[in-house]
């Protein structure tokens, strides 16, 4: 670290910016490599530098990617969107309802539920994968959409956050006023409390989306039919073949770029939104 003390300031502004620049390069260069590499044919990897563009083969790569195994890549993208998108929307609503109920109502067993939820935060996925597989085969739902979708809805940490958000952003007086006006509790939740909790719920939604998009263990264990794979599992499977079949290399690289792009764009666009949520969760 290269800052010294003098006149109560960080002395060397350039040094501070150099550190930030190094951190930014470290973070971004692998992605730059992904972009340049997806323009290359297999042969170009040995003839061109890592961060320069090859002969422009991007469209050829993309075409080959979507042609491979009868366009299975479409299935993978669609599956990822369904698992992560559907799971995040439904899952965050379930979290919001439960967090609100724990914070603002007094049903019996509420403390027990909250204690179990906190325990659930700490249970490693490794512990759950094997029994989940065995239970799913017992129910004969291994290798189905639901076997992966339903477990990923469970987000104990989301409930914990939703409870914090409900406490912080829904004043008791507002609920009292809604009650006096004759609104039932369910209606109060959906029309009064949920809109007030919105920034928090959006944060839970975003992070659950990322969590599901990242989840690898569960689909790996529960799915064998490539048509049901999310995109990361599919690309992983292709990558395990690349030592024997180098022609998979451009496919995996181009596929990775297409899988990453929407997420990075979503993050940049929703920048303000998730920041607000983070602030509500950790500073308020």
């Amino acid at each position, binding site marked *: 670290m290269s800052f*010294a*003390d*003098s006149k*109560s*300031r*960080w002395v060397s502004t350039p040094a*501070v*910016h150099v550190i*930030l620049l190094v*951190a*930014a390069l470290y*973070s*971004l260069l692998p*992605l730059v*490599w992904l972009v340049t*590499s997806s323009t290359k044919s297999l042969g170009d990897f*040995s003839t061109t530098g*890592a961060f320069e563009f090859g002969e422009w083969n991007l469209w050829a790569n993309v075409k080959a990617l979507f042609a491979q195994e009868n366009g299975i890549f479409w299935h993978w993208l669609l599956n990822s969107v369904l698992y992560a998108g559907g799971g995040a929307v439904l899952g965050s609503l379930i*979290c919001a309802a*439960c967090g609100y109920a724990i*914070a603002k*109502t*007094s*049903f019996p*067993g*509420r403390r027990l*539920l909250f204690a179990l939820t906190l325990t659930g935060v700490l*249970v*490693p996925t*490794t*512990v*759950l*994968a*094997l*029994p*989940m597989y*065995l239970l799913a085969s017992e129910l004969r739902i291994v290798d189905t959409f639901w076997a992966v979708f*339903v477990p990923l809805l*469970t987000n104990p*940490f989301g409930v*914990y956050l939703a409870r914090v958000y409900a*406490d912080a952003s829904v004043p008791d007086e507002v609920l*009292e006023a809604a009650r006096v006006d004759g609104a039932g*509790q369910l209606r109060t939740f959906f029309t009064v409390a949920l809109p007030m909790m919105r920034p928090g719920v959006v944060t839970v939604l975003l992070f659950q989306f*990322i969590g599901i998009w*990242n989840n*690898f*263990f569960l689909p790996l*264990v529960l799915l064998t039919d490539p048509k049901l794979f999310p995109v*990361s599992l599919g690309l*992983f499977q292709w*990558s395990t073949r690349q030592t024997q079949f180098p022609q998979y290399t451009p496919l995996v690289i181009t596929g*990775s770029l297409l*899988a*990453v792009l929407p997420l990075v764009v979503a*993050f940049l666009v929703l920048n303000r939104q998730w920041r607000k949520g983070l*602030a509500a969760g*950790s*500073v*308020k």
Partner: protein
Amino acid sequence: MSVLAPERAPAQEQTSTEPATRTRKKDFAGAVLAVPFAILLVCTVLVPVAYTLYLSLFTERLRGLGFSGPEHVFVWLGNYLEVIADSAFHASLGNVALFALIHIPSMLIGALILALLLDSAVVRLKQVWSLAVFVPYAVPVVIGGLIWAYLYSPTIGPIKNLLGFDPLSDTTVLPSIANIATWQWVGYNMIIFYTALQAVPKEIVEAARADGAGGFRTAWSIKIPVIRPTIFVAAVFTVIGSLQVFTEPMVLKGFTGTVTSTWSPSMYVYEAAFVAGDNGRAAAASVLIAVICAVLSAVVMRFSTRRSSR
């Protein structure tokens, strides 16, 4: 794993112990709202955990000539003893211990330094820097692993030529795996720390400045102590995540023989359950991992409360 750090939660807990004292009659409505999650929690967490505990006490054995199929035999703690005595399990624990020793300090210290730099008055374009460092978090772990695997690969990637050594050799593969995890998480934790730093009262910082404390001194004596609870929460989640590391070594296994199929404890469980088909041993190993996780996070949290209660 999604990790946020709502560090003021304990304070809120006190105000909410008697919530909404007014609507006791319609308690069932609250229950209705909580039921969907409660069902999910029971079916996808509690039952599987109980089932794992049950499985860990049994093993499958063939009886006689094996014509009647395998038999479920109660073996007390036999599976646990088998795992504890297994040198492959020891090796996997050794690997994650080293992985954690490299990954946790470099990631947390890096994130803290970047957050403090962003928080200092002199930095321009804060948004740009923080977004740049945060972007890897938006990359799915498998794909982050694949990108780095290709970067490490001697035939395709530039790193071997750039650094002059093979990042996938016996001795270097472990730091290489730790680097993937650090790349992925440093920006995320930076944002968490930076957000927490916004809660440091400005008057205190200014008073320290007026008393002649420099930037480094202010960071060390005022800012870091204030966000210490956040740092400890992040440390707990990182410890748990490190112990369970699975995706990164799984991906690298396809690129190099130096990552074995039981490289990390999670891979050990996967191998035992889905390659060797030994459910009892897999269940026992996963219970052991969960216990180690629980003990370690309890130790970190205990350490945290002791230090901040002074």
